[in-house]
């Protein structure tokens, strides 16, 4: 099919474009080797955080593969036009200005070309958007990093449902099917409270006392809301490519399928009051066996015991 080949071709173009950005990857790797893990911002970082889900693959490809190139080329083009005007059409070199006021060809070109650019951006944009908004059923193919494809990544149907509630100012989590709940508070740098004291190697303003624990390679359905008497927050984890408002009295839904174990951090992303900056999100992705042991130990509702079980396994 001709269109299929066209999209494959465009996929190859975006892949080639991304291959031209190794410098960013090298910088990030160097930082990671210096003792940092993925899942939170690194000193000196200026790229997106490393992706561990198909959705974030799409977002990263969209940013690196299309948007940055489109923007850069347009900037260079406009700069070139400005330089031509400055050099060739200043009062000295061009003392008698042209008197025409209309040029149909130029008008058609500057109308049609932006439309073409917008359409090229819109095609993968709508694909990524519908990926983000469609709950996987196990059969639907997701775009992954090839955003000009018709979908080539399998994502299983959700097996775990977690409800996150934005409070003033921290997050509550609930394993809905298991009926287990936990409260997640930010660790303090100079906290006298032993339980809330930040340990070395933990990222400042991101680490929490009780992390949300989820299994790897599993689609997790996130239900997001805020305290009914509270204010609007937003639940966001950059490495997962998810960000969704937590609105009092409303249940928003999103999902992620992390392919790597580790701790992934996010922050409240809707200005919600005085401690907006101090209600981080920490998600610990563990192997499926570790998660089963964690949930079994959590059964009585004792998160500390469950966390100790997890720590012993890791």
């Amino acid at each position: 099919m001709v269109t299929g080949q066209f999209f494959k071709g465009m996929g190859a173009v975006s892949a080639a474009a991304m291959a031209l950005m190794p410098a960013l990857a090298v910088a990030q790797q160097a930082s990671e080797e210096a003792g940092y893990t993925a899942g939170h911002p690194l000193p000196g970082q200026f790229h997106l955080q490393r992706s561990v889900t198909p959705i974030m693959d799409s977002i990263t490809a969209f940013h690196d593969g299309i948007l940055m190139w489109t923007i850069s080329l347009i900037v260079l083009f406009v700069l070139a036009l400005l330089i031509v005007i400055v050099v060739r059409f200043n009062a000295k070199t061009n003392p008698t200005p042209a008197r025409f006021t209309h040029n149909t060809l130029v008008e058609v070109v500057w109308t049609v070309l932006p439309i073409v650019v917008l359409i090229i951006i819109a095609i993968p944009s709508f694909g990524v958007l519908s990926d983000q908004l469609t709950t996987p059923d196990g059969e639907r193919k997701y775009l992954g990093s090839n955003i000009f494809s018709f979908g080539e990544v399998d994502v299983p149907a959700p097996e775990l449902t977690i409800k996150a509630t934005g409070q003033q100012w921290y997050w509550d989590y609930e394993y809905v099917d298991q009926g287990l709940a936990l409260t997640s508070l930010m660790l303090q740098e100079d906290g006298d409270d032993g339980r809330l004291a930040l340990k070395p190697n933990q990222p400042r303003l991101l680490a929490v006392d009780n992390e949300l624990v989820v299994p790897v390679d599993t689609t997790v359905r996130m239900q997001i809301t805020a305290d009914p008497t509270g204010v609007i927050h937003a639940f966001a984890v950059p490495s997962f490519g998810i960000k969704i408002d937590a609105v009092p009295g409303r249940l928003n839904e999103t999902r992620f399928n992390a392919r790597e174990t580790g701790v992934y951090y996010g922050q409240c992303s809707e200005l919600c009051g005085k401690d907006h900056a101090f209600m981080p999100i920490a998600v610990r992705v563990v192997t499926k066996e570790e998660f089963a042991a964690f949930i079994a130990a959590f059964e009585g509702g004792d998160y500390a015991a469950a966390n100790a079980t997890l720590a012993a396994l890791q």
Partner: protein
Amino acid sequence: MADTAHLEAHATGHDHAHDAHQPTGWRRWVYSTNHKDIGVMYLIFSIVAGIVGGLLSGVMRLELQEPGIQIFHGLAAMTYGVEGDAALDAGKHMYNVFTTAHALIMVFFVVMPATFGGFGNYFAPLMIGAPDTAFPRINNIAFWLLPPSFILLLMSLFFEGAGAGALGFGGGWTIYPRSRPPAIQVRRSISLSRRCTSRVFPRSLAPLTSSPPSSICALRA
């Protein structure tokens, strides 16, 4: 002869400076229907507002240049006379108030007046060869609505906002009340900062004069 000079000036349309109806002194500016004068007033206004917005930004940058909280709890202690944790909380709120006011000032009282109001008024009639804007008196009143609305925004910084002792609205430039401790109502500071933007977007005045929008109702319940 003087008559000839007058006729020549009349033919080229440059004799208006000598007309009796041309106001001078403060009337020239306050009653102005001249697109260039109005454009200049917009530019001067946006520079003044830019200094205020820049000062807010300066304090925020002082706060952010080192990790941790170093400026705002002291600022709150001086302003409200609170100490310790109360000063810290008030300082955090004050930071949000500064962010909100800075954003509103920079967008609606610096960039928009300078570009569309200033440069637009000054240059657009010249570039299209028009003698002035289509409705010069509306152009004048449009400018003079801006200083009162700016004053309303600045006043909102000093009215009770989020809870006892905390002044100003700290919910971001979109000014919908998402930032609020439990059991307080929408306060004057929100109302004032809303009224200031309603000068820029008059349609947003409608919810204030008729029934409040549902989000505000929910908060009052």
